[in-house]
């Protein structure tokens, strides 16, 4: 029977099998395994059955720990159950994994193996997570390609059922989980043929049941625990044989043969590599290449790592081997070697006597965090084995100039199959390049006898991110598990990339180069930077140019150039006959966009038809004539570390940085965001100084801190650039000074939130506001000069500003700037505000999530310092522990302050009573009080500098702790409502003075919009595909129940003054504070330009009531519960149906949507009653009600200095 093939990625391949083989699937999002849960949720929603005809139950849990618990329970009760995870998620499962294995419970956990965070978090792939789980008793089975991931998902399940040993089936995160490749999928019958129904029944029968009750989960004492622990040995001993037999049965049916250890290469090899995971693809190519050159080399692929079958391992090794290099994709600091190496050594040690000939065995590390692993590196490992004294415990793929572990390799060495077409595409996330390339792979891979592979690399920014697509097509199966370095086709979809990065580095000699440029074939050459011209000439590239943006506009596609560029690729790459390609592209467009309506399909069809009319071949001149350089990644004025290290990362050259360039403990400078000028906005806001009322709203909402205001002495203007604008300040008593609203043109993302929030309209032309979007390019240079001048102006005296007034807040310097968050992000304005108010004494504990990525993902950080060098100190621990992490910071700060006070008291006579008393009794509740304390600390430090005693030295080290610190625990709803809820609740319950800022986007934004307990009823989200059925948790009321926690619900777009006031009150409150901040998000599904409008609608509908609960008011005899928004004035629907998260359900499933909408409206009505009751009646008589905070509109004109 001929089997059809499909193009899928590793996650889909695994989920497709796991879903059909299970009854209960517990899921939780974590990169890169989240899509396995997404597929399962979607299939459940589509009522897809498993092989027994039932629809699996897919349940999202609050954490991976929860998922493992649910898995354990389901298994104990006799269900077939699974889960998917990675990295820290797997670590959270470990306690349950011990139990599941200890109870000999058959199950499979599928892991997209990912780096465990150490000195830094990494979302990319290596084996550190699965290696951390190797003591649990789970069998570890590793697949190394997309096809194997599918096959091993089945083999693992079958083996688990037969051996009763639970399996951890793993494959490399991203490299396999996200690689698109052609596979032959497994049918239901294939699955049924491998799964032994008797074993399934036995498993069910072992399940707990009151009909045949047993006791499991006992506690055992020293008398028997040990013996009982050894009782399962026979199962482990039998397990490899079980796997071996199942692999044979699999081969009989499917024709794909696997062994516990698969050897490839010379039968008489003298040197071999032992390894597992996707890297075997690169090594296998290398082995074949070297064998053709006559070298006797081989590769042993480890399939079943644990239980380690020593005999099978040794049997698989050729007898003549004299050198073995074991490659581990993990690092275990302090160990003799990494786990696979140690096991290999132990295998030899256990079976060969010391007198026998032993091969030389060395071990090394490669590929941590998806570091490239290429045939060149594999060759260097094999070459090392030839050396008389090969290096052990080596590294390969990096340059270790500190401990000199790294092997040298020749980057020019290549094993690329000459029959393979290799294409590399540079695009922007927003231009659709990756999506089109995924379609191209499917188009080509559908053809008979054609194989296709796609792998996609993204940078760490959410707005304006650069994508690089690596596509291979050819007549032979493609197993090259590394990026393309010799491309026969290179496409640059963004002309501006040419001046910033070396896009032709990967181009092979004679390659075709397709360039999207706003120039004709006659003009384009003169606009290329000189190095680009030279590379085109040197590599004899065949150059084509198209103005794809013009073509897209003509086709009505806006900035989506994907269809046009894809058509051009097919037209000039020759991968398919042109006419056939056009038909196939259109079929793919219909497949991809058909559900989105005929109009979208028609426009893309039109783009296909028009694309080739715009494509031009360029006659390349004989010599380079340009004087344009490639720009440095950062300014020459940047600090050395930023220039040499971060700059290399920005330029995409981070792989070339040696070990010595890196800090040894993961500590980095702040204040680096300002050096990464990304120039991603096509339009930027321009200030109309005559119209502006200086309300400060634009400054407040700007998510990227690129629009700022200062008031300064007019004399400063003498040195101002000619186009620098200023106006008379609209503050009483400041009329003699000047006011400027300035935009940083190269940092702006063009989100337009500022323009939308601007309340002023021209009396003669309503569309003209006090700030207006204008094309960036002509403004870049003059406005950059203006920005530089502006930044150098002194900041206005903080003590003279009313920090509760939005108008005054605009003059407070933000210490969070130019983050890589999405354009128009709803979270970052809150963080920026936090740094404006308290930044110079701020400690931030940041839960993993969007805010930790745009806050702390290299190369640069948005956190920065003020002119005195002070600024937020920031750290991220984990996702689940952020509240506890922040509590620890608070305790440390308090303990240090306490010890400083002891030291101060102890040495009081040295400093004078007045100073000591002032330091100890300082009132630091105001900006002035803190400034005064800083002065006193400065005076103290001066005095201490000349003293030399242990106490004096200690006090000098701790003197700064006498200035009050502000500790903030920042994170998203996934943390606060779900995975970190227990910790957060506990920390709030301790009564400690920490402040919690929950950036509530109502989904797991960072991992792509999975539902959390903050997701509202009636909204669609991943893991809630059919619409969330249950109501959002009221975190505010939970916290209020303590009575001692300051709680606020804020929405900046609903009432910015209330937001500012809540921040100040929370910080001032001497106890735990919780601010839940409505944060609009790209995952809500609308143009975020209107984010603040939507926030307002959320408040007006009553969905998001604004409130503050201030326990301090109770002491004043007032009601601590203050409702700051008015009764709902618009229906929930009017707010909700502006967002795709609600409206797509109304389209997809109108009846369910209607039902959920009605329930959601009921939730709001009920919530309003509860809140208004609290405001009216709780805890205090009605006459003591404080006044609600006036709305933003009511206060927009205010603003007086104190």
């Amino acid at each position, binding site marked *: 029977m001929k089997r059809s093939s499909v193009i899928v990625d590793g996650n889909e391949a695994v989920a497709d099998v796991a879903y059909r083989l299970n009854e209960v699937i517990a899921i939780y999002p974590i*990169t*890169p395994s*989240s*899509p396995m849960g*997404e597929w399962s*949720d*979607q299939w459940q*929603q589509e009522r897809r059955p498993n092989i027994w005809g039932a629809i699996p139950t897919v349940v999202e849990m609050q954490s991976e720990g929860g998922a493992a618990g649910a898995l354990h329970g389901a298994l104990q009760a006799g269900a077939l159950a699974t889960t998917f995870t990675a990295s820290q998620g797997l670590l959270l499962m470990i306690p349950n994994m011990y139990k599941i294995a200890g109870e000999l419970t058959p199950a499979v956990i599928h892991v997209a193996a990912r780096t465990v965070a150490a000195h830094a978090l990494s*979302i990319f792939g290596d084996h550190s997570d699965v290696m951390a789980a190797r003591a649990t008793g789970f069998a570890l089975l590793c697949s190394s390609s997309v096809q194997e991931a599918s096959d091993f998902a089945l083999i693992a399940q079958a083996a688990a059922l037969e051996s009763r040993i639970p399996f951890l089936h793993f494959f490399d995160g*991203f490299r396999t989980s*996200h690689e698109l490749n052609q596979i032959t999928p497994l049918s239901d019958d294939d699955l049924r043929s491998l799964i032994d129904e008797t074993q399934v029944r036995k498993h069910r029968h072992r399940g707990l049941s009151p009909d045949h009750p047993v006791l499991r989960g006992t506690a055992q004492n020293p008398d028997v625990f040990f013996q009982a622990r050894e009782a399962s040995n026979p199962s482990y001993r039998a397990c490899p044989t079980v796997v071996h037999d199942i692999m044979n049965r699999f081969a009989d049916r499917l024709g794909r043969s696997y062994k516990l250890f698969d050897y490839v290469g010379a039968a008489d090899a003298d040197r071999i590599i032992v390894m597992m995971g996707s890297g075997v693809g690169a090594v296998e190519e290398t082995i074949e290449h070297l064998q053709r050159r006559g070298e006797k080399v081989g590769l042993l692929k480890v399939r079943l790592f644990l239980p380690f079958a020593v005999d099978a391992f040794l049997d698989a090794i050729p007898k003549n081997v004299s050198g073995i290099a074991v490659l581990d994709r993990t690092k275990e600091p302090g160990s003799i070697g990494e786990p696979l190496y140690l096991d290999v050594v132990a295998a030899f040690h256990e079976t060969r006597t010391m007198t026998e000939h032993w091969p030389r065995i060395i071990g090394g590390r490669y590929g941590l965090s998806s570091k490239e692993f290429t045939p060149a590196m594999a060759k260097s490992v094999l070459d090392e084995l030839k050396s008389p004294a090969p290096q052990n415990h080596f590294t390969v793929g990096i340059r270790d100039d500190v401990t000199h572990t790294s092997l040298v390799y020749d980057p020019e060495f290549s094993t690329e199959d000459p029959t393979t077409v290799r294409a590399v595409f540079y695009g922007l*996330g*927003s231009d*659709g*390049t*990756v*999506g089109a390339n995924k379609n191209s792979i499917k188009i080509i891979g559908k053809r008979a006898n054609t194989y296709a592979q796609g792998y*996609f690399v*993204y940078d*760490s*920014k*959410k707005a304006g*991110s650069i*994508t690089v697509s690596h596509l291979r097509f050819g007549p032979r199966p493609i197993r090259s598990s590394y990026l393309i370095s010799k491309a026969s086709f290179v496409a640059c979809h963004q002309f501006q990339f040419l001046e910033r990065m070396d896009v032709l580095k990967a181009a092979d000699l004679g390659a075709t180069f397709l360039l999207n440029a706003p120039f004709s074939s006659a003009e384009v050459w003169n606009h290329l930077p000189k190095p680009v011209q030279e590379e085109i000439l040197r590599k004899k590239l065949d150059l084509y140019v198209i103005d794809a943006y013009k073509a897209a506009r003509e086709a009505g596609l806006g900035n*989506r150039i994907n269809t046009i560029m894809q058509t051009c690729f097919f037209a000039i790459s020759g991968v398919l006959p042109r006419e056939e390609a056009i038909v196939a592209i259109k079929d793919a467009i219909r497949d991809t*966009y058909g*559900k*989105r*309506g*005929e*109009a*979208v399909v028609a*426009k893309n069809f039109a783009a296909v038809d028009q694309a080739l009319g715009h494509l031009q071949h360029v006659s390349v001149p004989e010599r380079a004539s340009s004087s344009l350089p490639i720009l440095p990644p950062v300014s020459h004025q940047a600090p050395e570390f930023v220039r040499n290290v971060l700059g290399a990362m920005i330029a995409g050259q981070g792989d070339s940085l040696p070990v010595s360039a890196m800090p040894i403990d993961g500590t980095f400078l702040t204040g680096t965001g300002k050096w990464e000028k990304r120039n991603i906005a096509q339009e930027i806001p321009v200030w109309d100084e005559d119209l502006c009322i200086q309300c400060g709203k634009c400054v407040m909402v700007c998510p990227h801190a690129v629009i700022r205001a200062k008031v300064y002495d007019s004399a400063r203007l003498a040195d101002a650039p000619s186009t620098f604008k200023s106006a008379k300040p609209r503050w009483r008593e400041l009329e003699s000074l000047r006011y400027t609203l300035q935009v940083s043109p190269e940092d702006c993302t063009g989100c337009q939130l500022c323009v939308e929030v601007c309340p002023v*309209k021209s009396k003669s032309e*309503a569309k003209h506001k006090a700030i207006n979007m204008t094309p960036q390019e002509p403004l870049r240079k003059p406005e950059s000069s203006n920005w530089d001048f502006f930044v150098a102006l002194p900041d206005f005296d903080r003590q003279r500003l009313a920090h509760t007034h939005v108008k005054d807040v605009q003059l407070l310097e933000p210490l969070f700037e130019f983050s890589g968050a*999405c354009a128009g992000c709803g979270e970052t304005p809150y963080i920026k505000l936090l740094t404006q108010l308290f930044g110079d004494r701020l400690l931030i504990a940041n839960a993993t999530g969007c805010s930790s*990525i745009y806050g702390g993902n290299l190369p640069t950080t948005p956190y920065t310092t003020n002119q005195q060098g002070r600024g937020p100190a920031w750290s991220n621990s984990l996702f689940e522990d952020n509240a506890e992490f922040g509590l620890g910071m608070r305790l440390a700060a308090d303990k240090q302050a306490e010890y400083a006070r002891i030291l101060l008291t102890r040495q009081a006579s040295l400093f004078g009573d007045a100073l000591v008393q002032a330091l100890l009794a300082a009132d630091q509740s105001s900006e002035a009080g803190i400034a005064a304390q800083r002065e006193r600390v400065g005076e103290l430090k001066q005095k201490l500098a000349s003293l030399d005693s242990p106490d004096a030295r200690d006090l000098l080290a701790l003197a700064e702790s006498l200035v009050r610190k502000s500790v903030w625990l920042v994170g998203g709803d996934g943390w606060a409502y779900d995975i970190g809820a227990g910790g957060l609740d506990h920390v709030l319950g301790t009564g400690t003075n920490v402040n919690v800022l929950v950036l509530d986007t109502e989904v797991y*934004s*960072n*991992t*792509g*919009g999975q539902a959390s307990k903050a997701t509202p009823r009636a909204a*669609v*989200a*991943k893991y*809630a*595909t059919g619409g969330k059925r249950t109501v959002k948790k009221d975190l505010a009321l939970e916290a209020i129940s303590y009575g001692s926690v300051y709680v606020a619900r804020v929405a900046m777009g609903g009432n910015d003054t209330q937001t500012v006031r809540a921040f100040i009150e929370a910080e001032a409150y001497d106890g735990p504070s919780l601010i839940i901040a409505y944060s609009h998000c*790209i*995952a809500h*599904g*609308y*143009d975020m330009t209107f984010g603040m409008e939507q926030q307002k609608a959320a408040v007006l509908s009553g969905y998001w009531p604004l409130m503050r609960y201030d326990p301090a008011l109770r002491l004043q005899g007032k009601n601590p519960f203050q409702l700051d928004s008015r009764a709902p004035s618009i229906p929930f629907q009017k707010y909700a149906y502006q967002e*795709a*998260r609600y409206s*797509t*359900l109304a*389209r*997809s*499933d*109108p009846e369910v949507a209607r039902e959920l909408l009605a329930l959601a409206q009921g939730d709001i009505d009920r919530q309003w009653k509860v809140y208004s009751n609290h405001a009216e009646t709780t805890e205090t008589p009605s006459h003591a009600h404080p006044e609600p905070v006036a709305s933003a509109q009511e206060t927009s004109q205010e603003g007086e200095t104190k």
Partner: protein
Amino acid sequence: MTNITTTYLGLPLRSPLVASASPLSDSIENIRRFEDSGVGAVVLPSLFEEQLELESYAVHADLSRGAESTPESLNYFPNLHNYNLGPDAYLELIHKAKQSVSIPVIGSLNGVSVGGWTRYAKLIEQAGAAALELNIYDIVTDTHDKGSRVEENYCELVRHIKRSIGIPVAVKISPFFTAMANVAKQLDGAGADGLVLFNRFYQPDIDIDALEIVPSLTLSQSPELRLRLHWVAILYGNVAANMAVTGGVHTGHDILKAMMAGAHVAMMTSAFFQNGIRHANVALHEMTRWMEEHEYESVGQMRGSMSRRSVPNPSAFDRANYLRVLSSYTQSPWRSASGIAKTE
């Protein structure tokens, strides 16, 4: 027994009251209620080609935003089985309505392209509509566009659609033509089986505080009926197409006026919004009682009885009427508007 049956577009109707295109006829439950309340036919809400397109683009934009930009989130929304973005839901409504009620169900279509108009017209016919109403809702804002070209386009559209489908076609137009009578005649000549007079437009308002344009649609008032009566009366006998009055029909008396002016049916919407669907019963009862009291045998008997060609002094429909109203108004400045009406 008074006979209130009529015909419209060649379809026999049990009464001359028709539910005009509005969101009220967007569900099978309401269409059943209309039937129960005695209306002769139901016009479904308009299928707006442009709206389908815009919704398609909007969903596409919403689902594409941020996609394939970062490795952790390749997209932000689950893949739903269907977004109902084509005309399928509308066609399903026609299909179900036809199965659910015995009165004729008339489809309504607003298009923007000749291709779109024809494609959707065919689909509406295939779905089982008894007739099609073309809702020509076109605001010509291009200062270069001439009236003659616009009128010719409309006629060409009607010819095109008539060639494409077999069910009767009515054309709903606005009153804003320089030569309304001629336009009606042209459309009649192009093959329109019916003329629906007149469309009411969404008229943007200005919020003077927010300096924003606010879209608004107010419900019709009875006085708006007069414009319709005026033109039906003028056209009666001059066009072969059946005429429908829509806009300002609120009472049984209004239906009678429409018939007397020359219409085959009177269409009602605002009164249903104000009083509920059962208001059809009330209006029809009022009409029937009046006919009984005045011993009319049938609706057909009165059709066109007060048309321009049937009244003794047709100048009431001409410019003279304008002068007369004005002079009576100036002579009696204290009179209310209704007083003026009574004196006519």
